[in-house]
């Protein structure tokens, strides 16, 4: 059951497990434990409402009326549980930046990634790209001498990847992924056939086989390769030994959203709900799982010895105000499943898992550099999912030790990310907005000239989004300062200190150079521009190897409660259980020692499913059978 604060309060004061955060990880673990009969309380800090069709339509309208259609633009501001927003950051004229939102930032470079605190978490605004990580990604420390190794291998994760692909509902081409080296099972197929490739992908396929050499003299042969997606396509009857797969559609409207129809707005919202979201998992939660929204966990409560005994939280009724009520709940196992930064914030404020001094450290993202160009003829941008293919050729092996590897996404959405197109095309073609001094511009187009010019220009837009690996660096970190920086509810705001190290900067630089060569091979006219505008450096600007470069945030926050074998240099073990506290788990991308060049949700979900098995084993060892326990719980309450 799901209830807002206006609904019934928790029915008991003790649960087998309390899970903090109703995004992908929290929902998957709640589903697994609930299915095994455990009594689970799932607490979501943000607002619900999107689980009903009318609530969903309200989000769609909110998105449509937003001037800047950024990842959080479909979701309303929440004072009680604020989210960071990419709109919070502005560049300063002489260099540097200001951060004017939920995050306090004091690092040399801005952390440009957001997340969403609402029912479903960032799994609401995500794109739905679900590549697996490659075996090469799990041991960069040993193999290439940078970053940190995982205590797990790709082989260990493979069965959980398959499980996660079922839970998320993935469409993909297994043969292609085998060729890439990320699927090893020769018989595996995805639940659904691959999402059709875009015409832009086909346009780019013309240069398949071209050899591109990066600045480190690393030469790769280009192959346009499809990306597996958590988006409904056509079910594959061969899936699961010919049992097939039934797609899950929209939540709140039966028999809808069972196939992508090409709204081309996956980020921030799929109007048809053909894009997978945690709401689907929540819709199937059994009665013994209680899901409550508008419950902001403030800290984890210490118990006897090294154990924790539950959480303290604040319940609110009005997301526009800071009026709230303090409550607490006890549980045998506490699972933190907020975003990487929220988990770190909670651990720091609770003063837990301190042994390694790694909580909050090793903050990562995929710094993403954009490259854009005009093709010679119409290619059909602004159609279909955000991207359906990429060049995966610079992701693994080779001179990875010298420069961070990168994954080249071929955008299906024109120059929207880089320039605000196609709306900004209208501005420029009209001559709207005045010159730098504010004077009305003398020339510009109107009428038929304008329409023809826009049709010609916009239809030819190509954009590459190149996600660069960032490795764990303890200096990139989340801290708190409760005496100075708190939110409206009194919870400490995250303070971020962030930078890109030389290895990552070399990756961004190589990505930029490779994009130039790709555009040349495609005979496209490049318009990539990282230089300051009217004396103001663009946000995320840095100079490296005498070249102006910029990066964007990818929304892939990771590393803040890093996983490892030893309690002295890592926060959680391979099951995402804190080394310091045997009944406290911190799950999500925060556990990842490295994130390669893969969008991390799939790996995160695989880890969550693996953790759910261990939590079940822990609970089984701790408890009497469920039935007996339930009677005791009722008596306790009376």
């Amino acid at each position, binding site marked *: 059951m799901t209830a807002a604060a206006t609904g019934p309060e928790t029915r008991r004061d003790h649960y087998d497990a309390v899970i903090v955060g109703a995004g992908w990880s929290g929902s998957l673990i709640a589903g697994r434990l609930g299915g095994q009969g455990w009594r689970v309380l799932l607490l979501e800090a943000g607002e619900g409402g999107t689980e009903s069709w009318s609530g969903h339509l309200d989000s769609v309208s909110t*998105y*449509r009326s937003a*001037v800047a*259609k*950024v990842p959080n633009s479909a979701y309303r501001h929440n004072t009680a549980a604020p989210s960071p927003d990419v709109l919070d*950051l502005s560049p300063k004229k002489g260099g540097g930046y200001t951060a004017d939102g939920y995050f306090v930032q004091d690092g040399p470079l801005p952390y440009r990634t957001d997340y969403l605190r609402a029912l479903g978490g960032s799994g609401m605004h995500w794109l739905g790209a679900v590549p697996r990580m490659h075996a090469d990604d799990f041991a960069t420390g040993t193999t290439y001498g940078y970053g940190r190794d995982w205590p797990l291998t790709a082989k260990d994760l493979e069965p959980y990847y398959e499980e996660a692909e079922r839970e998320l509902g993935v469409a993909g081409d297994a043969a292609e992924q085998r060729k890439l080296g990320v699927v090893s099972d020769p018989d595996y197929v995805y639940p659904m056939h691959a999402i059709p490739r875009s*015409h832009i992908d086909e346009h780019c396929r013309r240069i398949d086989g071209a050899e591109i050499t990066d600045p480190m003299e690393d030469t790769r042969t280009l192959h346009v390769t499809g990306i597996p997606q958590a988006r409904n396509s056509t079910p594959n009857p061969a899936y699961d030994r010919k049992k097939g797969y039934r797609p899950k559609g929209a939540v709140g409207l039966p028999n809808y959203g069972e196939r992508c129809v*090409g*709204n*081309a707005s996956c980020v921030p*919202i799929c109007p*048809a709900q053909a894009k997978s979201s945690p709401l689907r998992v929540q819709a199937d939660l059994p009665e013994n799982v209680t899901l409550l929204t508008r419950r902001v966990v403030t800290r984890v409560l210490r118990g006897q010895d090294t154990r924790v005994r539950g959480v303290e939280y604040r319940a609110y009724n009005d997301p526009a105000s800071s009026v709230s009520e303090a409550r607490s709940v006890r549980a045998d196992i506490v699972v933190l499943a907020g975003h990487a930064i929220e988990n770190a914030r909670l651990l720091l404020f609770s003063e837990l898992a301190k042994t390694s001094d790694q909580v909050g450290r090793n903050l990562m993202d995929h710094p993403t550099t954009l490259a854009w160009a005009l093709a010679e*003829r*119409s290619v*059909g*941008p*602004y*159609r*279909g999912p955000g991207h359906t293919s990429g060049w995966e050729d610079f992701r693994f092996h080779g001179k990875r030790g010298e420069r961070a590897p990168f994954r080249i996404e071929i955008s*299906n959405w024109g*120059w929207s990310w880089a*320039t*605000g*197109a*196609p709306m900004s*095309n*209208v*501005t*420029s*073609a*009209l001559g*709207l*907005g*005045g010159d730098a001094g504010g004077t*009305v*511009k*003398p*020339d510009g*187009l*109107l*009428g*038929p000239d*304008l*329409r*023809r010019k*826009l049709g*010609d*220009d*916009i239809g030819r837009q190509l954009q590459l989004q190149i996600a660069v690996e960032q490795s764990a660096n303890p200096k990139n970190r989340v801290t708190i300062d409760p005496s100075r920086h708190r939110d409206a509810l009194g919870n400490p705001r995250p303070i971020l200190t962030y930078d890109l190290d030389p290895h990552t900067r070399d990756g961004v630089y190589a990505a930029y150079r490779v994009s*130039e060569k790709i555009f040349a091979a495609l005979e496209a006219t490049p*318009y*990539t*521009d990282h*230089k300051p*505008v009217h004396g103001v*450096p*663009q*946000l995320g600007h840095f100079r490296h190897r005498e070249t*102006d470069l*910029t990066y964007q945030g990818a929304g892939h926050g990771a590393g803040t409660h890093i996983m490892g074998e030893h309690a002295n240099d890592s926060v959680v073990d391979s099951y995402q259980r804190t080394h310091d506290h045997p009944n406290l788990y911190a799950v999500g991308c925060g556990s990842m020692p490295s994130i390669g060049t893969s969008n991390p949700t799939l790996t995160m979900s695989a880890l969550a499913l693996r953790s759910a098995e261990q939590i079940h084993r822990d609970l089984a060892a701790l408890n009497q059978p469920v039935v007996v326990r339930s009677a005791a719980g009722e008596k306790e309450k009376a």
Partner: protein
Amino acid sequence: MNPVPHPVPGEVVRFVDLSVHLTGFPVFDLHATGMAEMYLDTARQQVGRSRFDEFLKALRKACAPRLGPAKLEPTDREIARAVTYLWYTGAWPRLAVAAHADLRREMANREFVVTPSAYTEGLVWSTFHGHPAGAKPPGYGTWSIEPAAPPSLAEIERECGLERKDATDHPTEEHRQDERADEAAFAAHRLPGPRVARDVPPSAVPTARAQEPEGNPA
């Protein structure tokens, strides 16, 4: 007098007729958005009712025989652009500071989307046979299909009833390439450049800069 009253108020009909000259879309397409009256109201609110009437007068005069930005005084020119931007995007833009000051506007000079449905009725998407992101989805797999070429200038002019005497009936692809070559010298400043931050509204994005041969822009 017509016994059946026109379903659309006369002032809206006149606004749409003039908007053909601004947008390059025929009256049918403009009425079909269902937004004409709301856009007229919005423009009047933003500019001031009497000032907007003056603008319409100046615009009517400038449309004969063919509208160009140089035929309007600077502030009228900026209003013309703002109204066109409204039709194309569903949003009222940020104006050139000089025009904002000249109009002595009391509201903040910032971009806003008029209504969620104004966004989905923006004309910009149909210039390249597209659909608004997040609305009017064309269907499964349609993104794989080669897009149709956008219409030529002559086709647009004919559709709008704005033919010029020297227009050719069916311009060849060669002709289209010529048109493009003519523009090469000033193409960059007709294209959008990078946003310095994500919070720069589309109407405040600077124009692109000319490219240097090395690829790193000047």
